[in-house]
């Protein structure tokens, strides 16, 4: 009925009824069409212009234009402002327009996707945009979810569906959703579905992805709805033949779209500096105008009033000064020309394209080039001081490989050459041949043949070792085809170990809750599984008790060396010693180690134990404790077999990259959700933690006070005579100096330290009263590793450093849990082509491999920063010089706002004569090439210290332009004073003087550009010489008879070029001004390089002496990792979670008969429910 229809202004509750379009439409909920575009054809022009004039710069130029239309004030004709303004507006408009076209196209494509909708009792294919709230849609396997749906029924048992949420939260593992039983009964019967008239009341649209509340009312019964029942738009249906869903939120109301809020607009520090500078330039401009206006007042009073016979004035001196003030505002506005902003954007865009184009940042394995997703942050890449890196998927590949092992006191896995020296293992080394084993995993690779030999010889210890690996685990096997085994491991560590056993002839084949079937050296053996003594973080070990076909009872145990060694039979002490040596070696290489042990069990004892186990397992209280005690009891007197060493495979070149970056004085902090042991191991394997370090502080306290104490102790240890109070420099920054900033100074430390802090302690340390303590201690350390941190904490750490260090930060990560820190940091980098897209989507730059970071920063970042700074310095120089000349002329024209240059020159100076040369400078310049940038990462440091463009550099630039403008005005003035042409005629008339002054200026700034250019490509030459030629071509054209006769009032300079440029003294004046402008700079630079050479100068000098070095020199040899032994830490790490023991024994996931369906859904259920990405376990 329509009686209860309400029209909520702001929706408080959503109400809809299935298959009742009439009712649902009455609520005017949004349909499923989305619109991300901003304009349509009619609104484009007004809206876009409106937006553009909201920008301060554009509004300012509009204001200037208004000033220019007042005849009393107008010192320049309108076109001097209109031409650049129109150019800028239309360029921006073109860009906005094409962006919006793309959005339109995207929208159209998405809106026109087809989906089957139940309309009037029939399934019809409709466009997405025509789907309404309350419709029932049918989804098929691998289809995108159309809108936010209430799951009604599915093809799978128990009404389950599997979905992939990669687009939503970046996680690739499948998730399970389950329909209500009552709707599940509808199945795929169109008739039943068409008669379904359930009513849904639920929350209004919102952006919470993990929460949904609502009710479904059906036939008088009310069922509660939660997130388990909802399929969100943006997900993909997987492993499910079909499902039906009821549309709850459509189009813009969907949680996906509600989450597409405007991303925060990042600005670079140069941007912020520029804002401050532009503001102070305006102040400066006002002062200049004021001086000139006062000058005008005085002049009018002293001279002008008397000169009135020739130049009557309608106004008195103060009013004239007032008008003059505005006239000078117009003339001197070139200190901040509109083209500055356009050029900056163009330069950034160009440098972004270089990143996209770089073949050295292209990853061929998954065909992923680097991408600059934000084109406005380039120069900041050259100023990074802190990098916050995720671990899994960023530093590591999330791939574990079985690298080495120690069995019965003998280490395997090393490659030695003839002299017994260790050989580096890489792709070209010959792999062990596993062809004798037809169940071997072809991807497994191992290099030490001796291990295969001993196992094939039948060495009992080695065989026991691998038997243990094939039995003691919680892996699920999957055999799609006979002999094609696929393991579903809960942790990649286990997968690696079981795969190793498989290749060495102990193939784990299948399991039931009660048994494990293994092919041992070609022979099928089924063990009875009596108990799984599950893993947890306190026990740090897991065991299985199995009965072999012969009836022998054995307990197999693997776990942390420290734990296992405590429980060994005393007879193993010799073996323990040797194994410990090996373990230390493995740990020193950053490998993750586990110790393996076994024990034969007396059957009678076992009977007794099993009974007690059963009692404990069914106990109502203190079950955990009782079980632990039982486990403790049986896992005793073990016999050591050996140890495994698994490599958490780093991505290629990670240690080298980290080394390079730290040479560039960039601090790298690892923020990971992983366990402390795992994180530490990675710290060691990528050289961030080193055995030689004075100390590695571990902060893992449980109370606020303890954390504080640990931090303080660490700090005092590092600086025994440091001050207790932090040195905090307070300053103000930002526009109008409104922001207060506090900077904690860096403190010097003797020696190398590192800190590992866990998430729990971090939570305390990030409290307001302790954050400075944390920051001080952390910043003194070479390396900081934060483990078990939540996504929010990652962002908090970044914010902390941003807040108190005023340094540029970069966050790099690959997963959804990195999004917050990627957004928080100045620059966010996403690793593309691996897990979901979420990190990439919110990042500013993306590429496929961590190692590309060094190229992004040391090459692209450095160049971008250098180019931008050069550009800004030069641009300000050029425009200040240009403007100051007007200032000086004020003293010779009665402060009347007479321009010293031709108006056309003023219009075209920034736009034509100097635009392209400076652009080519800032697109092509390199101080040293990429090869040298890698050789000397120290070249990166000037950017961190803001050395190339700062307030100080700006002041120097202003002084330099002051000097140049003095030369450029007073030399022509003096040289032309009272002189005449060589035929006695006029040469010091206004027009000739203007031509001389502007030509001198243009030549001088062009030569200055040449001096600033370090890298002269053909383009630079072409643009520089081209622009000068264009200038001369333009003046001869504009000052020609024809132009004058066609547009008399616009081109009054007729004949000036011809009459003036044939005079030798004019050219001699130009020569003199150029030399006077340029030679002091040359001399200064030359002496500076000699007396205070910077690293750049040295490298450049070196580069020039061996110009073709990069061709001659062989590539830098890859650093062979030094063999190290760890003396004080265990290499134990195992990314496993509790609960899998129960799982594999409960049989819950094994009840399905294989014939019912192909197994993937079975296994994906297993994974979806329980596989947790290595990290992210703590939220």
């Amino acid at each position, binding site marked *: 009925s329509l009686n209860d229809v309400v029209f909520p202004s702001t929706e408080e509750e959503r109400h809809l009824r299935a298959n009742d379009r009439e009712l649902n439409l009455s609520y005017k909920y949004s349909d499923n069409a989305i619109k991300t575009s901003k304009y349509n054809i009619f609104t484009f022009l007004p809206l876009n212009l409106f937006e553009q004039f909201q920008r301060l710069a554009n509004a300012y130029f509009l204001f200037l234009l208004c000033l220019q239309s007042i005849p009393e004030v107008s*010192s320049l004709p309108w076109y001097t402002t209109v031409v650049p303004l129109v150019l800028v507006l239309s360029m921006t408009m073109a860009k906005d327009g094409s962006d919006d076209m793309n959005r339109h196209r995207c929208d159209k494509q998405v809106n026109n996707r087809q989906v089957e909708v139940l309309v009037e009792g029939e399934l019809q294919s409709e466009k997405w945009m025509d789907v309404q709230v309350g419709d029932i849609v049918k989804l098929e396997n691998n289809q995108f979810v159309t809108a936010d749906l209430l799951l009604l029924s599915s093809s799978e048992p128990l009404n389950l569906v599997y979905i992939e949420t990669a687009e939503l939260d970046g996680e690739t593992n499948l998730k399970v959703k389950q329909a209500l039983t009552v709707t599940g009964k509808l199945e795929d019967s169109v008739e039943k579905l068409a008669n379904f008239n359930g009513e849904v009341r639920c929350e209004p649209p919102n952006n919470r992805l993990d929460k949904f509340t609502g009710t479904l009312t059906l036939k008088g019964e009310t069922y509660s709805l939660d997130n388990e029942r909802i399929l969100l738009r943006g997900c993909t249906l997987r492993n499910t033949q079909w499902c039906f869903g009821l549309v709850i939120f459509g189009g813009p109301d969907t949680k996906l779209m509600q989450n597409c809020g405007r991303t925060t607009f990042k600005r670079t520090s140069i941007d912020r500096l520029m804002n401050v500078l532009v503001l102070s330039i305006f102040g400066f401009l006002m002062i200049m105008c004021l001086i000139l206006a006062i000058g005008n007042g005085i002049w009018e009073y002293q*001279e002008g009033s*008397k*000169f009135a*016979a*020739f*130049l*009557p004035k*309608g106004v008195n001196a103060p009013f004239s000064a007032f008008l003059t003030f505005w006239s000078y505002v117009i003339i001197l506005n070139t200190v901040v020309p509109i083209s500055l902003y356009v050029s900056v954007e163009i330069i950034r865009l160009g440098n972004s394209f270089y990143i*996209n*184009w*770089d*073949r050295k940042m*292209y990853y*061929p394995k998954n*065909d*992923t*080039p680097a991408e600059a997703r934000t084109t406005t942050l380039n120069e900041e890449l050259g100023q990074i001081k802190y990098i916050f890196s995720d671990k899994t998927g960023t530093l590591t590949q999330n791939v574990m490989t079985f690298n080495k092992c120690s069995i019965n006191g003998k280490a395997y896995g090393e490659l030695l050459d003839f002299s017994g020296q260790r050989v580096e293992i890489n792709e070209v080394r010959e792999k062990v041949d596993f062809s004798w084993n037809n169940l071997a995993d072809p991807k497994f690779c191992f290099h030490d043949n001796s291990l295969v030999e001993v196992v094939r010889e039948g060495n009992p210890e080695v065989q026991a070792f691998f038997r243990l690996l094939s039995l003691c685990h919680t892996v699920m096997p999957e055999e799609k085809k006979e002999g094609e085994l696929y393991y579903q491991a809960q942790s990649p560590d286990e997968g690696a170990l079981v795969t190793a056993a498989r290749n060495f002839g102990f193939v784990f084949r299948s399991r039931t809750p009660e048994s494990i079937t293994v092919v041992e050296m070609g022979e099928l053996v089924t063990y009875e599984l009596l108990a799984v003594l599950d893993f947890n973080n306190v026990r740090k070990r897991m065991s299985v008790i199995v009965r072999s076909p012969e009836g022998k009872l054995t307990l197999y145990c693997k776990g942390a060396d420290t734990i296992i060694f405590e429980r060994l039979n005393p007879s193993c002490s010799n073996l323990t010693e040797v194994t410990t040596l090996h373990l230390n070696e493995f740990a020193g290489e950053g490998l993750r180690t586990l110790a393996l042990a076994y024990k034969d069990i007396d059957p009678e004892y076992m009977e007794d134990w099993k009974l007690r186990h059963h009692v404990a397992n069914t106990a109502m209280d203190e079950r955990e404790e009782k079980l632990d005690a039982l486990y403790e009891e049986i896992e005793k007197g073990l016999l050591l077999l050996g140890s495994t060493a698994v490599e958490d495979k780093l991505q290629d070149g990670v240690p080298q990259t980290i080394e390079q970056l730290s040479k560039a004085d960039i601090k790298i902090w690892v923020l990971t959700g992983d366990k402390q042991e795992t994180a530490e191991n990675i710290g060691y394997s990528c050289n961030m933690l080193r055995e030689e370090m004075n100390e590695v502080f571990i902060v893992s306290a449980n109370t606020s006070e303890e954390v504080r104490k640990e931090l303080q102790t660490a700090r005092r240890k590092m600086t025994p005579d440091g001050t207790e109070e932090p040195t905090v420099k307070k300053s103000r920054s930002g526009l109008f100096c409104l922001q207060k900033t506090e900077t904690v100074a860096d403190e010097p430390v003797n020696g190398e330290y590192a800190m590992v802090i866990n998430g729990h302690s971090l939570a305390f340390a990030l409290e307001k009263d302790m954050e400075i303590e944390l920051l001080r201690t952390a910043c003194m350390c070479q390396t900081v590793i934060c483990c078990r941190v939540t996504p929010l904490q990652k962002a908090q750490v970044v914010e902390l450093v941003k807040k108190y260090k005023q340094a540029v930060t970069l966050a790099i990560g690959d997963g959804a849990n990195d999004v917050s820190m990627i957004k928080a940091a100045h620059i966010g980098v996403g690793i593309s082509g691996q897990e979901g897209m979420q990190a990439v989507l919110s990042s500013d730059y993306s590429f496929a491999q961590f190692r590309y970071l060094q190229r992004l920063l040391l090459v692209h970042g450095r160049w971008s920063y250098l180019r931008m700074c050069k550009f800004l310095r030069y641009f300000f120089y050029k425009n200040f010089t240009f403007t100051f000349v007007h200032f000086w002329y004020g003293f*010779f*024209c*009665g402060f*009347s706002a*007479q321009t010293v240059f031709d108006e056309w020159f003023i219009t075209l100076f920034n736009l034509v004569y100097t635009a392209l040369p400076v652009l080519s400078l800032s697109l*092509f310049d390199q101080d040293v090439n*990429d090869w040298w940038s890698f050789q000397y990462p120290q070249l990166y440091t000037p950017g961190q210290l803001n050395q190339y463009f700062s307030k100080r550099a700006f002041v120097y630039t202003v002084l330099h332009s002051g000097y140049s403008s003095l030369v450029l005005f007073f030399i022509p003035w*003096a*040289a032309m*004073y*009272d*002189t*005449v*042409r*060589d035929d*006695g*005629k*006029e*040469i*010091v*008339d*206004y027009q000739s003087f203007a031509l001389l002054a502007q030509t001198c200026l243009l030549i001088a700034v062009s030569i200055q550009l040449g001096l600033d250019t*370090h*890298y002269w490509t053909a*383009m*630079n030459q072409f643009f520089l010489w081209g622009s000068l030629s264009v200038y001369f071509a333009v003046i001869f054209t504009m000052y020609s*008879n024809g132009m004058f006769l066609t547009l*008399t009032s616009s081109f*009054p300079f*007729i*004949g000036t070029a*011809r*009459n003036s440029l044939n005079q*030798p003294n004019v050219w*001699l004046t130009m020569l*003199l001004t150029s030399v006077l402008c340029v*030679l002091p700079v*040359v*001399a200064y630079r*030359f002496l500076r390089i000699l*007396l205070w*050479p910077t690293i750049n100068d040295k490298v450049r000098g070196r580069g020039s002496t061996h110009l073709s070095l990069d061709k001659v020199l062989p590539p830098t040899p890859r650093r062979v990792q030094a063999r190290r032994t760890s003396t004080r830490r265990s290499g134990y790490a195992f990314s496993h979670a509790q609960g899998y023991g129960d799982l594999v024994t409960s049989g819950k996931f094994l009840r399905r008969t294989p014939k019912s369906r192909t197994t993937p859904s079975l296994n994906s259920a297993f994974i979806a429910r329980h596989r947790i990405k290595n990290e992210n376990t703590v939220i």
Partner: protein
Amino acid sequence: MMKEELETTNRPDNTAFTQQRLPAWQPMLSAGIVIPGFVLIGLAFIGIGVALFITSQNITVLEKDYTGVETTSDCYKCSNPSDKNCTCKLEFSLSTLFEGPVFFYYGLSNYFQSQRSYGASKDEYQLSGDLDYFKTPISACSPYQYDANQNPIVPCGSLANSMFNDTFKLYQIVNGTKKLVPFDGKGIAWWTDYNIKYRNPSVTPLKNAFNGTVKPSFWSKPAYELDTSDPSNNGFVNQDFLVWMRRAALPDFRKLYRRITEGDYARGLPAGNYSLEIAYNYPVLSFGGRKKVVFSNVSWMGGKNQFLGIAYLVVGSLCVVMSMVMLIVYAKFKFPEDD
């Protein structure tokens, strides 16, 4: 095989441009270039400086102020602005030949032709002979756009209105008698001004074009009577007018009045006594201005200007000195970085 199967559709192009490997010249400010460069520039500048200086020294300039500020000056009597049609005399003698061709300039000081509103106060269309603008001159000419009776002023504007109107006659005193030195007033304006920029309306007689207009208020005669003897020097193409209309860039300036190129004076002004008769009309004292006359000859580098030569000498010497300094510094710090 595997490698070839890899999709590489996204692989960026391998061009020197996209990979930023464009061949380039990378000059360095090395001692081998900078120091010899400074020496060479220095020497060249000194050479040019010497040439300029000597050239400038050889130019003769005779400059006489006739504003009449000093009571001793003959023109003192004319300095009272109410005194109309006053003439005064300026006498001088030359001991040697003033080599020709001699150019005769008038000079004004503290006179702001460079003022923006003054410079803008003219009508380019009117001056190029467009009759429409004779009836309605552009507003920039205001207050010299229309007279009190709303008649258009032609030529309009401050610039034209304030045209310099002192006239000069130069006599050589030969044995007590005055011998007129012939002046050439035709070739004193720019060719482009005379032939293209300024045009009289194509109306004959010229006077008719000016019907309904009035002359600038300061002018004693209308534009079409500026030189009645020569139609090609009359109206807007009168060369004195053109010279005046080419406004000066600086508040002190001189403008070419006549050339002395004819008759006995083609080689220059011979030694002797001269008397310059001045029709003193143009008031400058009210705003602290000065008037002067200048006789000068020219060289390849134009009029006399010591500055350029001296500047070249100074800059050249500085370059040489600088190169010495740099050489010393270089010798001392040549190998500072072996690290």
